[in-house]
């Protein structure tokens, strides 16, 4: 084992210590969950809780370890990197490329270790209650441990290659857990959708990693960031493309528009999974990657140019995806869209240059979103339905769930003095400072939407009269205690980073995550900007007020209460902006000009165009060209659609299902190719 030398810190860089025993052996945290995974697989079934003991044990150890590091890092920033060389990849451009595994302990990774361990432990405990009597509990906990281990490999990675290993491990565990109830077709489809969407993005990550790594001949973050800080020429040459490619990878895991489509479907998994992976930890991997390579975006001209593309995507995500939460009936989908929207906030912040702001929102969001998901799980556990149309009036039956859920909602809505207020405010301040004024107003509008849909969810779930079947009851203590424990940081986490307030020797969140070798160079506001805070608060308050006016009253049925029928917007939102259709169309098309693709196009693209564009065109036509015969336009679309249909019918005849005919085609094709080469050579 070789500890990488702490590189000569520039002026302004925090002076860092190497930590003690806990930093030196932080790798135990990375390995623990994998050991737990193996133990669960081999011995889990014999135990009373079917293997949950191992998972919880490993996570508890991790929490203790991470807490010690967290506290150590408060008083004095830690940097420690341990690398074990596994293999020499080869020589590129005269430089030796090596493949190393190891762990890095610095402000950023300590924060992530802590979040993963804290949320993970509580979710694991909660899952013992939630999954009681369920199918494949042992395997469930094994997969959860696998996930936690992969996530820690990811965040503890000192280089891009190990990060990719953890990244893929996380994707695999996510696939396993989303498809936990694979007996139902839609669940396994959701798992595959998540996997495929992430795979598309992973191509970007891998290409970006290769590009950046080969440019300087080293895949380690320390070297890349160091080179970025020194404005290295070869890195500058690839910074724009490499930066955008890494961002494309992050878009998949962190569900940025338009690669967000997998996340809402991922709610097919058990609720603890949604809470842990699709809210608090896994989806933050993309944000983490952006933060880890932040100097590339901050110090290089190409990186800064890449940021100009990243910010709008983040802004679109935060606003457009938040709107979708307004029409979802499934309570988990409301939270899922909310998660996508909040990830948009984080991405916007990091892309706009707010390293601390994005990470701080990641930190607080992990707590209150896990809380909201677990609360939703508790409700689902009680009423045996995901749909808010089967809920209502649960505040009397489930007081603990109700109060914690309200705390989480208020925190998410950014109400002072809960955690969400401070982190969201910091993002607004960053956007303001960096000159993205228009985007800042979109973000404030997004805060309004956030408050609006959370009020809707709370009102429909907990107020009015109960509309479902049976008698709901409060969940067991195994489930409510984690809720309470998550509610505490949801309230107080914001105080860790009030601008301008520092706890003396212990600094604040800014200095903690700023404990990196290369200074991040992001802007920190000196004091709370009360004008901005007032805008944010007003947006949140307005959202709650309007939401309450709209959804607060009880009615005969939930459908009557749940009125949000803005003419154009509503159908658009119900169809999720037709994003799924578009994605399916693209996937279907790239399968090649087979009958199937034509059929897909016929069903989704053409119909989508006919419905979407056709509708719009017809409106415009009526308005502007009042005299134009409507049937003409209709006929074009019908003609196109009928043509695609005919082509589909014709092409499907090629698919006889006779393997030998395919083989014959194959041989003929190969021969033609050989002869063509012979002739044209």
């Amino acid at each position, binding site marked *: 084992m070789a500890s990488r030398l702490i590189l000569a810190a520039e002026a302004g860089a925090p002076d860092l210590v190497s930590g003690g025993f806990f930093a030196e052996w932080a790798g135990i945290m990375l390995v623990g969950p994998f050991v737990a995974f193996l133990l669960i697989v081999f011995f889990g079934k014999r135990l009373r809780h079917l293997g949950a003991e191992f998972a919880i044990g490993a996570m508890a150890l991790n929490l203790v370890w991470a807490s010690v590091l967290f506290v150590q890092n408060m008083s004095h920033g830690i940097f420690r990197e341990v690398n074990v060389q596994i293999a020499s990849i080869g020589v590129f451009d005269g430089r030796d490329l090596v493949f190393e595994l190891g762990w890095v302990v610095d402000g950023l990774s300590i924060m992530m270790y802590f979040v993963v361990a804290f949320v993970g432990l509580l979710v694991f405990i909660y899952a013992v209650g939630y999954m009681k009597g369920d199918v494949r509990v042992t395997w469930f906990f094994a997969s959860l441990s696998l996930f936690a281990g992969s996530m820690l490999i990811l965040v503890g990675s000192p280089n891009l290659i190990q990060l990719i290993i953890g990244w893929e491990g996380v994707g695999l565990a996510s696939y396993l857990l989303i498809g936990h109830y694979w007996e139902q077709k839609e669940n396994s489809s959701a798992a595959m959708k998540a996997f495929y969407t992430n795979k598309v993005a992973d191509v970007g990550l891998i290409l970006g990693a290769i590009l950046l790594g080969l440019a300087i001949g080293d895949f380690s973050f320390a070297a890349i960031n160091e080179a970025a800080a020194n404005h290295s020429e070869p890195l500058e040459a690839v910074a724009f493309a490499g930066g955008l490619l890494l961002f494309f990878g992050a878009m998949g895991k962190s569900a940025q528009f338009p690669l967000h489509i997998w996340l809402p479907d991922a709610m097919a998994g058990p609720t603890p999974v949604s809470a842990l992976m699709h809210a608090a930890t896994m989806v933050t991997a993309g944000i983490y990657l952006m933060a880890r390579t932040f100097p590339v975006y901050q110090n290089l001209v190409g990186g800064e140019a890449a940021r100009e593309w990243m910010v709008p995507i983040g802004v679109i995500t935060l606003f457009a995806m938040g709107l979708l939460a307004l029409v979802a009936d499934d309570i988990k989908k409301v939270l899922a869209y909310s998660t996508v929207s909040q990830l948009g906030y984080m991405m916007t912040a990091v892309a706009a240059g707010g390293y601390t702001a994005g990470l701080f929102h990641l930190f607080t969001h992990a707590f209150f979103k896990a809380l909201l998901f677990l609360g939703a799980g508790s409700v689902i556990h009680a009423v045996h339905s995901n749909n808010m149309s089967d809920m209502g009036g649960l505040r009397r039956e489930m007081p603990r769930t109700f109060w914690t859920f309200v705390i989480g909602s208020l925190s998410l809505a950014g109400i002072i003095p809960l955690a969400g207020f401070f982190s969201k405010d910091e993002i607004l301040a960053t956007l303001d400072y960096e000159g993205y004024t228009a985007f800042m107003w979109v973000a404030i509008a997004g805060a309004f939407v956030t408050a609006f849909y959370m009020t809707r969810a709370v009102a429909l779930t907990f107020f009015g009269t109960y509309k479902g079947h049976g008698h709901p009851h409060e969940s067991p203590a195994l489930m409510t205690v984690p809720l309470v424990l998550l509610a505490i940081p949801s309230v107080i986490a914001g105080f860790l980073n009030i601008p301008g307030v520092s706890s003396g020797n212990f600094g604040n969140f800014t200095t903690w995550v700023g404990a990196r070798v290369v200074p991040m160079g992001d802007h920190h506001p000196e004091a709370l900007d009360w004008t901005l805070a007032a805008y944010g608060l007003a947006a949140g308050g307005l959202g709650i007020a309007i939401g309450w006016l709209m959804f607060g009253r009880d009615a005969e049925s939930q459908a009557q209460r749940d009125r949000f029928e803005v003419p154009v917007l509503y159908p658009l939102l119900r169809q999720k902006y037709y994003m799924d259709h578009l994605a399916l169309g693209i996937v279907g098309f790239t399968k090649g000009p087979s009958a199937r693709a034509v059929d897909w196009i016929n069903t989704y693209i053409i119909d989508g165009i006919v419905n979407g564009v056709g509708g719009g065109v017809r409106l415009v036509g009526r308005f502007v060209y009042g005299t134009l015969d409507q049937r003409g336009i209709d006929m074009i679309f019908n003609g196109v659609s009928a043509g695609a249909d005919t082509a589909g019918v014709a092409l499907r005849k090629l698919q006889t299902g006779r393997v*030998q005919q395919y083989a*014959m085609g194959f*041989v*003929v094709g190969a*021969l033609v190719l*050989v*002869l063509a080469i012979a002739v044209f050579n």
Partner: protein
Amino acid sequence: MTFESWISEPVNWVYLVLGVGVLVCAARVVTTQNVVRAALYLVGTLGGTAGLFLMLGAEFVAWTLVLVYIGAVIVLFLFGTMITRAPMVRDTGLDNPKARPAAAALSLVLFVTLSYTMVTAFGSTEVAQVGEGTDTRVLGEALLGRFVLPFEIVGFILLAALVGGITIARRDLTPLEEEERGSV
């Protein structure tokens, strides 16, 4: 090289005998109307091939072929034939007569293309060191040295095929039978 000089080498007489045997057997494999006979003709083809390998100095591979193919694979085929209850007598349903002309033409074109390419590429290159076999030790060192990873992977594939074959071919027990065996 002229035909006379070629045929004057006695080793080529051996080649001719083996080659004709291999081709006749192979032709019978794909034309015979009896499944068991087809499998036995395949034995002939493989045996001839092993002979060709010996001529090329690949002794180890030749005997591997005999052991693995003739010893194991053919037995497997015969089992498969028996279990699928293919008739031991002439069966006209084995072929798809309609496909014959097209398939024959296609394979002829394939043969011409392949052999033309090969002959133009290699011309009359002589086989190096006729009659001198490859040391098995060289093969062993290559297999467990440079190619140890593919070797292990192939071993794993075999294991997977074994397990997979059992899983696929195993008859699922009916609920009643399962009960009789007693739940674990």
